[in-house]
């Protein structure tokens, strides 16, 4: 009889923690599935939403059976978690069928939702067959006026609050995150205070700040998103609003993640052990990167083939844009900067055009932390490693506080 390890035979493990795998992880660990691009909100800042009643989009969406097939293949590759997103995934009339298919395959099933369509029936199902991941609910304001200024859907604030109420009644675990207009400063404080007492919230809520442009390159929508997103200074105000939280662990983060880039496009894990499927069955390395040369038609292939053949080739691609090679490829602000192939595609339609907005947002934060001087560009800082070596969280906190005091005084 093999020896017992310790006291028991069964070990309870949180699957997001290291230690679940003795021999290294499975071929596919996580998959995102966009169930629809349609949404019942019409958010100013959103990169993906089509109208809820868009019949053409609905007719093109994958059937529940096809999604079930993708989930089954994902499970056969060892995948443990799926995230259903959209658009608004609960717009799908067959959402329950899809959700149960995932859970019966032994997948954890996260759901991104605005909560407006959470019915008592759905909440009962989620309570009985829990997703094993908290639902993630996005809020767009803490009053009817601010919420619906962004969501542009009359009645959506009340519907969201009702949905959240039903989740709370049924004790379905959920977390909240925020997306606010730059002017919604008061809302942000109210949101954080409200979020703090929710049972699923063991850390402050995340707040979207630097919105990306529209996934389909809709120029009219892009103008709206550009107007909705804060300028880099205001974005940094939001990003760094809780100075203590912001700097906690920053030294280790800088030491580990900042540093010179090179001409590789993909420095993240997209397409390695995770991937995303759009509403029509097109596989992407992640939810954002939809460039035609980086996506794979699952209707004509398989997840396994994409993960073993197609994505490794995509990930070997190198940047060619001269400005990228001059700047991003030499820039140490990795981790601060939102530039990546997915966002570059959203911003410019290429994989490697540097996005000035994200660049400036990263520089503002680095300047406030004292890592860069005014007017200095990070790729010109020859002594970056020494700067990180001298960086202290206490010093940065002091600096942020004095900047804040000066700003308020000014």
């Amino acid at each position, binding site marked *: *009889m*093999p*020896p*017992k*390890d*310790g006291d*028991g*035979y*069964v*070990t*309870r*493990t*949180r*699957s*997001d923690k290291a230690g*679940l*795998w*003795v*021999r*290294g*992880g*499975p071929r596919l660990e996580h998959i995102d599935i966009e169930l629809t691009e349609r949404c019942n909100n019409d958010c100013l800042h959103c990169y993906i939403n089509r109208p809820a009643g868009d019949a053409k989009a609905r007719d093109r969406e994958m059937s529940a059976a096809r999604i079930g097939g993708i989930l089954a293949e994902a*499970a056969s590759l*060892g995948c*443990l978690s799926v995230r259903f997103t959209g658009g608004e995934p609960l717009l799908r009339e067959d959402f329950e069928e899809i959700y149960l298919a995932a*859970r*019966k*395959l*032994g*997948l*954890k099933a996260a759901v991104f939702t605005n909560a407006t369509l959470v019915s008592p029936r759905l909440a009962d199902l989620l*309570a*009985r*067959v*829990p*997703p*094993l*991941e*908290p639902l993630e609910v996005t809020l767009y304001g803490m009053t009817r006026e601010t919420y619906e200024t962004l969501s542009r859907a009359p009645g959506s604030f009340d519907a969201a609050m009702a949905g959240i109420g039903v989740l709370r009644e049924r004790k379905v*675990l959920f977390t909240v995150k925020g997306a606010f207009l730059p002017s919604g400063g008061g809302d942000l404080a109210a949101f954080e205070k409200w979020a703090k007492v929710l049972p699923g919230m063991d850390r402050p809520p995340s707040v979207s700040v630097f919105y990306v442009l529209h996934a389909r390159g809709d120029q009219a929508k892009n103008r709206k998103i550009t107007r909705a997103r804060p300028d880099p200074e205001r974005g940094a105000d939001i990003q760094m609003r809780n100075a203590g939280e912001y700097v906690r662990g920053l030294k280790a983060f800088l030491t580990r993640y900042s540093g010179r880039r090179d001409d590789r496009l993909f420095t993240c894990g997209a397409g390695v052990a995770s991937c995303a499927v759009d509403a029509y069955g097109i596989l992407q390395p992640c939810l954002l990167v939809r460039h035609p040369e980086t996506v794979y038609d699952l209707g004509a292939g398989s997840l396994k083939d994409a993960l073993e053949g197609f994505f490794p080739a995509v990930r070997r691609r190198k940047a060619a844009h001269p400005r990228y090679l001059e700047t991003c490829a030499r820039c140490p602000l990795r981790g601060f900067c939102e530039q990546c192939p997915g966002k570059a595609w959203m911003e410019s339609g290429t994989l490697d055009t540097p996005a000035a907005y994200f660049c400036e947002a990263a520089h503002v934060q680095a300047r406030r932390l004292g890592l860069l001087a005014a007017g200095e560009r990070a790729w010109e800082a020859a002594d970056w490693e020494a700067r990180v070596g001298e960086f202290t969280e206490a010093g940065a906190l002091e600096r942020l506080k004095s900047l804040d005091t000066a700003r308020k005084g000014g």
Partner: protein
Amino acid sequence: MTDRTGLDRIFKPSEEIVAREIEGELIIVPLTAGIGDIEDELFTFNASGRAIWKGLDGRKPLKAIIGELAAQFEGDPEEIEEDVLGLVEELVKRRIVVEVV
């Protein structure tokens, strides 16, 4: 006469869980509420647990499982019996297996 409280009992995986084998690990994913104490908890087995789990297939009584394990591992049958009963008790408590009646 069958002893329904002892080694003639037969157990099978509960319909409230999904048992998955991934990268050589046996992983029990809760399907219904109340199996994990927290929402993202999965269960894995150690080597002894995995060996016993394989026998809990809804067909074999515990004594057959114990016999097979004793032959396979050349262990002390009494110790194996204690191990099997210990694990089954733990799994029943967690609703991971149910008795076939």
